[in-house]
């Protein structure tokens, strides 16, 4: 049974400002939101949001357009202030220098004129935020290792603008992982990829969190490609939200309550089909299903 808000008890000691931010430190959550509120003028996107994500945990953030999924990521990146409540990443305020956050955006076409090879894009993830000009053997080795990890060695010296969407998203994973993040924030990273590449990219992300205990917050329209990987779901709808395991949240009862209309969740083999859950007046079927 799910309740509004967190299904996990918060640990009041953990995540206090001043505690050291190493991901290995026991008890320090990778991400912690307490009583978080986000309002745009009159409109409240979410309020009273408590969320604790532990190292190595995979949390999918779901919800219709405009429910504040991307805004939540911006808060975690330190690009937006909460209207109320607190947020901590590795026990520290987000957005500070040296924060170990990896970010994977959705795939977008890169211009052919952009003077970057695959390895340059990954290299920027390593030290693109630093001042000065430095290049060294260890840097090259780190970039090579990150490229190899996602199977991109073959096109390491290709212009980014000439790669396919799937190849580009593998590079995005390498770019985010090369900085050894303790938290990985993903904003629709599978959008516009075919099924095979969706699987490759989500498996790369999953491998990282099991091997290096990186916490993953995964914003998506579509839960099916990551359903086997998801530990918990944060489902945001029109100011309401639920946190819980996929079994707890992805039910006809919970979603009908969130959307305040009849929503049916059907399990077809290992996939979930959500019917009736698009924004008011929207489509019948959740977008992206069966793609």
């Amino acid at each position, binding site marked *: 049974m799910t309740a509004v808000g967190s299904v996990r008890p918060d640990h009041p000691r953990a995540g206090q400002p001043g505690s050291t931010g190493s991901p290995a430190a026991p008890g320090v959550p990778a991400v912690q939101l307490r009583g978080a509120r986000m309002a745009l003028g009159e409109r409240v996107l979410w309020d009273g949001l408590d969320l604790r994500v532990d190292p190595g945990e995979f949390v999918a953030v779901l919800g219709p357009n405009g429910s504040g999924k991307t805004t939540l990521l911006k808060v975690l*990146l*330190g*690009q937006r202030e909460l209207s109320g409540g607190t947020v901590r990443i590795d026990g520290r305020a987000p*957005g*500070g*220098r040296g*924060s170990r*956050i990896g*970010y994977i*955006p959705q795939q977008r076409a890169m*211009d052919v*004129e*952009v*003077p*970057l*090879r695959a390895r*340059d*894009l990954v290299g*920027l*993830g390593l*030290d*693109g*935020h*630093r*001042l*000065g*000009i430095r290049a060294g053997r260890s840097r090259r080795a780190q970039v090579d290792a990150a490229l190899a990890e996602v199977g991109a060695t*073959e096109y390491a010296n*290709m*212009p*980014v*603008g*000439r*790669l*396919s*969407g*799937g*190849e580009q998203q593998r590079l*995005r994973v390498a*770019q985010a992982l090369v*900085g050894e993040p303790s938290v990985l*924030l993903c904003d629709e990273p599978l959008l516009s990829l075919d099924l*095979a590449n969706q699987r490759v990219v989500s498996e790369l992300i999953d491998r990282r969190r099991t091997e290096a205990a990186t916490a993953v917050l995964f914003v998506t329209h579509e839960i099916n490609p990551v359903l086997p990987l998801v530990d918990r779901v944060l489902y945001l709808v029109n100011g309401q939200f639920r946190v819980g395991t996929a079994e707890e949240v992805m039910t006809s009862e919970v979603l009908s309550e969130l959307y305040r209309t009849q929503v049916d969740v059907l399990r077809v083999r290992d996939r979930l089909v959500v019917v009736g859950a698009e924004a008011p007046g929207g489509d019948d079927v959740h977008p992206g299903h069966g793609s």
Partner: protein
Amino acid sequence: MIEILARLFDFSGTGALLHLPFVRTALLAAAVLGLIAGLLAPLIVTRGMAFAVHGTAELSFTGGAAALLAGVSVGLGAVVGALIASVVFGLLGLRHRERDSVIGVVLAFGLGLGVLMLALYQGRTANKFGLLTGSIVSVDSTNLWLLSGCAAVVIGALLVYYRPLLFASADPEVAAARGVPVRMLSIVFAVLIGLSTALAVPAVGAILVLAVMVTPGAAAARVSSNPVVVTVLAVLFAEVALVGGVVLSLAPGVPISGYVTTLIFLCYVGCRLVARFRRPPARLAPA
């Protein structure tokens, strides 16, 4: 017709002219300008700011025309006009569509004002065209020091900010997520463009600025994607065009514009041809 062509390609006096002090100053000015333009051009192309550079150059012309009318230093007017324009365009950020229409609107207005002010100006008409076509032989040692100072500022800024600038230019969303101050860098870059444009306008003219600040980067990006190689090539192309243009224009005694634009255009066409014949056929993505 033949006579005109013969004049344009008459280089018999070039050797003797190269020894004149003012020619040497002009060549030095061209070389320094080529260095600045070549360094900035790849980033301008990456940021999709070609039109913003054009707008900056034209508004630098407006500033110069206003200064001419007001009776103050034309060079100062050009710098002020270019800096205001570039910072405003830089603040418009990386949303190309919105930025382009705003630049178009402001550019047309500024150009109209500039033409009006030139029409109201009572002095020598040679000064009027100087801003549009430039006159590199008019560069004196003071200007040369100004140019070199600007080059030092550009090189210094690039040494410190190159990596975050490249990150913010090529991949703004992820750069912002990694804590790169994208907006602040937009302004830093805009100031660099404004300074360079303002100094380039009196020397090569508002019309030519686009040719030397954008085309070298666009040409280099056709043949390489390695950011270092692209920058080196862009500097090389800009130097060939500017220094070559000055040398070729000496004996015929005409403005350098035609020579510089032709040389840089040939570089661009050459690069496109090289890219076309060298590029392997498009691969299929591995499943």
